[in-house]
């Protein structure tokens, strides 16, 4: 792909604007609270779009197009099953406890609700995982720019790291959130023309339906048996594993996204944040998945475009960039690449700002220096930003050198995350759940995940203890690992809680259902009420699934 001067102008303009936003916000950051939690005064339209954009990394944009080309419209399950329902749940049912608790982070909520060890476990694993995922996506981006544009790997990493550092260091969480919104607009405006052009060229949706096997254009028709669909999954694993355990585990407990909602200026705005974010989230498949499906159709119809071959199949990861090269003239090509860069930066800044807060409040203030003044924590927050980005860069190089280590770590992270939602569900809705119960549940849930992986095989992976079952795909294996981990955590938490002394009710006020007054927001109009928004989204969701049944 060849870039011309105007493409670089667009890219450089973008860099100037993101750093400029950080520069303008620098004066509003005078306390640790403003730097790390945005001082709870960000308008709701901004927190909603940031809630979405922080999750929308470059790997997701590239990966969803790849997945669209590989699995077809079934990829939409990652949105319509695996994200939106959980976003509704967190907004309607869980946000009152997160926001109402006045906790500054998700681990801190766990400390208030359960105990120190549960918080420590969550804070430390979260901090490590955040750094690694930031480094891994940095590596993926630099590798892609190297492949597509021939850019130097080191320069890509250093440049992107330096820019994210500049604007998060200057303006803290507020700057990260503001930039995420700009990045979100850019992603939508930069990629939707590609979806429109590619789908039109492939003959519209009906044209695609004619050219591709039936299974690629139906989301639900072939999920009865794993052998019938390319994902190798079946309805129960899909709904329970992806739609419930994994999705709720991410959207309802991951501090990276929850932090955006917690930055809102009121409880009512915090609850509306994930609900309003659900609207664009529902539409995203049309922007990121459709181009991938169209790419496969264009390949099959001999249009002149072809997915790059790889082995016996195609190199799906290049679907998005090869389409851009074919459909975007210079100028728009620059916008598309800038959008890719923007999606990467929004994901990375999300990781960095979440890492910051958890390290400063939950690890440093929690265990290293509990009683310093606010100025001290502001400095620590700033230093952590620099160190965090430095460690992400180091991780990117580890990823470049030792691919196996990264695969292994991502597997372990999956084990740690899988049981999380059971802990939060019981913590928020069952006042009898205790700290010992939660801690034991998390550990045994992770162990159950590892055990399931050790006893089952899929695509030649797993079964390192013995093979008692084999899954048709790794995706199905992941879903079932999650189901076993969640169920184990749920069961152990309940049993251990019942065997240990309950927490005093006075300590749980504002943290648990039944001991919390969920404030009725009389000022909010009927269309701003969480229930109204959730119902509208739910109806639209059912409609979308029926259309692509």
């Amino acid at each position: 792909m060849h870039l011309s001067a105007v493409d670089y102008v667009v890219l450089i303009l973008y860099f100037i604007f993101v750093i400029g936003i950080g520069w303008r916000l620098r004066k509003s950051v005078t306390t640790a609270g403003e730097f790390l939690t945005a001082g709870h005064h960000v308008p709701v339209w901004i927190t909603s779009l940031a809630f979405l954009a922080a999750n929308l990394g470059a790997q997701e944009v590239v990966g969803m197009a790849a997945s669209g080309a590989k699995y077809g419209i079934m990829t939409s399950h990652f949105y319509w099953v695996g994200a939106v329902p959980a976003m509704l749940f967190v907004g309607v049912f869980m946000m009152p406890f997160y926001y109402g608790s006045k906790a500054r982070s998700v681990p801190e909520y766990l400390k208030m609700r359960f105990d120190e060890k549960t918080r420590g476990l969550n804070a430390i694993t979260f901090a490590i995982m955040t750094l690694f995922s930031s480094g891994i996506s940095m590596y993926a981006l630099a590798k892609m720019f190297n492949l597509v544009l021939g850019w130097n790997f080191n320069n890509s990493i250093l440049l992107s790291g330096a820019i994210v550092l500049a604007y998060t260091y200057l303006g803290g969480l507020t700057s990260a959130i503001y930039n995420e919104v700009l990045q979100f607009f850019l992603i939508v405006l930069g990629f939707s023309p590609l979806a429109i052009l590619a789908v039109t060229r492939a003959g519209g949706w009906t044209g695609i339906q004619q050219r591709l096997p039936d299974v690629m254009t139906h989301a639900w028709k072939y999920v009865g048996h794993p052998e019938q669909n390319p994902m190798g999954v079946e309805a129960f694993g899909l709904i329970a594993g992806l739609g419930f355990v994994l999705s709720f585990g991410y959207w309802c407990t991951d501090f990276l996204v929850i932090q955006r909602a917690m930055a809102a200026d009121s409880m009512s705005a915090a609850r509306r944040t994930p609900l309003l974010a659900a609207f664009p989230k529902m539409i995203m498949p049309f922007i990121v998945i459709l181009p991938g499906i169209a790419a496969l159709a264009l390949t099959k119809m001999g249009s002149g475009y072809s997915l790059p071959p790889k082995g016996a199949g195609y190199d799906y990861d290049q679907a998005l960039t090869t389409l851009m090269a074919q459909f975007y003239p210079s100028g728009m090509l620059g916008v598309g690449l800038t959008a890719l860069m923007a999606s990467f930066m929004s994901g990375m800044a999300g990781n960095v700002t979440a890492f910051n807060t958890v390290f400063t409040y939950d690890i440093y203030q929690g265990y290293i220096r509990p009683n310093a003044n606010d100025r001290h924590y502001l400095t620590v927050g700033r230093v952590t930003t620099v160190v965090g980005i430095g460690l992400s860069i180091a991780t990117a190089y580890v990823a470049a050198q030792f691919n196996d280590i990264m695969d292994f770590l991502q597997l372990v992270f999956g084990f740690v995350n899988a049981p999380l939602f059971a802990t939060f569900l019981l913590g928020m809705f069952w006042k009898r759940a205790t700290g010992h119960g939660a801690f034991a549940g998390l550990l045994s849930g992770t162990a159950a995940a590892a055990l399931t992986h050790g006893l089952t095989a899929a695509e030649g992976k797993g079964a390192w203890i013995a093979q008692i079952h084999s899954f048709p795909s790794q995706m199905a294996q992941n879903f079932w690992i999650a189901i076993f981990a969640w169920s184990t955590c749920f069961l152990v938490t309940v049993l251990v809680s019942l065997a240990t002394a309950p927490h005093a009710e006075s300590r749980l006020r504002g943290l648990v259902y039944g001991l919390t007054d969920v404030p009725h927001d009389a000022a909010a109009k009927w269309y701003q009420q969480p229930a109204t928004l959730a119902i509208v989204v739910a109806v639209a969701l059912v409609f979308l699934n029926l259309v692509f049944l």
Partner: protein
Amino acid sequence: MLDLRLPSGLFFAIIGVILIAISFTNPRAPMTDSNVDLYTGLVMLVFGGFLLLLAQRGRQA
């Protein structure tokens, strides 16, 4: 506090103008006959202008 509509509006308006300006002489992309730069440039200009308008009205209020 900075009104985010201002810088984002400005950003898209500028990109829109650049795309429109180059669209008349720019060769088309290999697989489409549409003037992609012109159409997306117009959309971005309108979007940027809309954000700027909102920011302006927000300031007056």
